[in-house]
């Protein structure tokens, strides 16, 4: 069923009895052309674009939990393309362009809201660095604007401009950045893929990868063996666990990142704001909750929950930036497990095994990348050829010395 004003009216007149589930719950077939491991945002987007753009529809997405139970529903919903490096910027801009047309494309309301993102700076050196990044973006044809203190104050009068140690001097503004309702992204891609014949199999955990003669022949799962011609991994924080089943050596460490939401408040924060004196980012959802987060917990963790110290640190940063935040109550917090790569950038590439493809290393910036990641991964799987915007995101770049270290932090995954 195509969603439209007409379909809503028709349903309303028939007492809403004719709505159908947005996707089927199929039992896995014995064999598929492509199996995608991981039914999160990237896995579902990959399936969607495989079917829609590349005509490969005999595809299964295997998800160990329920659809959208992982990081696609655990992030702070921010989209942007304000990256500096050549290996990153065109890719994230491609993603933002896909976000801009996504709802019409997959006929689902994902509440894409281009409310603008402001990265605040607090010192002359930081201003120069942001100006450089802004110039880099503009040279790639991406919108960027350097705001001075008064312009920021006009937009966000509630910020702590006269902080004794970290006064706000201005910000780098990307108007086309914003937020998207993250669950709807998973649902929209799932529905779109399902409509084109993709089987989305939930509660089906991959427990082994069967190989013969150096090629993958299928996967052992909790629902039995399923054969495939090509296998694609999009398992985020569990990439290593799955990768080890095929003896992959990976530059990945798994860490936990927490996120928070406050009680519902009247509209106060119009944009997405990031704090330059720490690492804190905040926006307000359409329901009114303030959605915010900070850094990872720094130690290796596979637990989808975090440490109280990080909770405290996040709140301190938030209140330091927005003093009024101290009066809001935190409603919920949660953790997700991140595939932190050694240079802070992702991997979309082939592996030493011919018909095994890898999509990982998203650190905690994977949500904004969902459409481009899915598109480029589908391109790679369908054509066995890297898409040109993801051509730097190679698995062997570490060995060759071509890391994409956006933050300049070196091979220390917990700092990216």
């Amino acid at each position: 069923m195509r969603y439209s004003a007409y379909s809503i009216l028709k349903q309303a007149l028939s007492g809403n009895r004719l709505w159908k589930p947005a996707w089927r719950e199929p039992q896995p077939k014995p064999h598929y052309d492509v199996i995608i491991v991981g039914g999160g945002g990237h896995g579902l987007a990959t399936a969607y674009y495989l079917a829609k753009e590349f005509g490969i529809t005999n595809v299964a997405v295997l998800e160990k939990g329920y659809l959208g139970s992982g990081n696609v529903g655990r992030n702070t919903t921010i989209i942007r393309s304000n990256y500096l490096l050549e290996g990153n910027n065109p890719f994230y801009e491609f993603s933002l362009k896909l976000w801009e047309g996504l709802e019409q494309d997959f006929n689902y309301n994902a509440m894409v809201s281009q409310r603008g993102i402001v990265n605040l700076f607090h010192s002359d050196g930081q201003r120069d660095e942001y100006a450089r990044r802004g110039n880099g973006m503009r040279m790639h044809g991406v919108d960027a604007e350097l705001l001075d203190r008064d312009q920021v104050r006009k937009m966000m009068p509630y910020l702590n401009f006269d902080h004794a140690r970290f006064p706000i001097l201005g910000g780098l503004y990307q108007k086309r950045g914003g937020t998207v309702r993250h669950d709807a992204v998973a649902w929209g891609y799932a529905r779109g893929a399902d409509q084109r014949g993709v089987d989305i199999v939930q509660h089906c955990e991959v427990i082994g990868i069967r190989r013969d003669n150096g090629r993958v022949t299928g996967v052992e799962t909790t629902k039995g063996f399923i054969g495939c011609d090509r296998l694609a991994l999009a398992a985020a924080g569990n990439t290593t666990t799955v990768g080890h089943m095929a003896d992959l050596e990976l530059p990945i460490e798994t860490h936990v990142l927490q996120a928070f939401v406050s009680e519902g408040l009247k509209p106060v924060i119009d944009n997405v704001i990031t704090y330059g004196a720490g690492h804190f980012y905040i926006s307000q959802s359409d329901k009114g909750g303030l959605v915010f987060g900070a850094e990872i917990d720094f130690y290796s963790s596979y637990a989808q929950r975090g440490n109280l110290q990080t909770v405290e640190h996040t709140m301190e940063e938030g209140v330091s930036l927005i003093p009024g935040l101290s009066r809001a109550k935190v409603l919920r917090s949660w953790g997700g497990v991140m595939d932190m790569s050694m240079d802070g950038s992702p991997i979309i590439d082939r592996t030493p095994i011919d018909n095994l493809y890898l999509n990982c290393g998203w650190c905690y910036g994977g949500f904004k990348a969902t459409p481009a990641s899915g598109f480029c991964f589908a391109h790679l799987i369908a054509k066995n050829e890297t898409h040109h915007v993801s051509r730097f995101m190679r698995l062997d770049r570490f060995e060759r010395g071509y890391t994409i270290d956006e933050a300049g932090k070196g091979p220390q995954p917990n700092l990216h």
Partner: protein
Amino acid sequence: MASLITCPHCGTRPKEEFSIRGAAAPKRPSATAKDEDWHRYVYVRDNPKGRYQEYWHHVAGCRRFLVVDRDNLTHEVFGVTDASDFERARTAG
């Protein structure tokens, strides 16, 4: 939740006093080792789920590097040793 770490020099201390360096398993190769070994040491990680040894630096205490032996799924801490003792035991073993 790994909130308290028992430093072998300072006793039981809050996690806030420590900074975390990363996996303790990779062993530094010799300066003349092959590029392949260095690549593996600098970039490749086992990243196991479960028991995990990690370098923690007691920055707000004795400033010694420690190795915290813990479970990265349950966050239970099994033991903490001084990094030089860890290295000595590993080299001897």
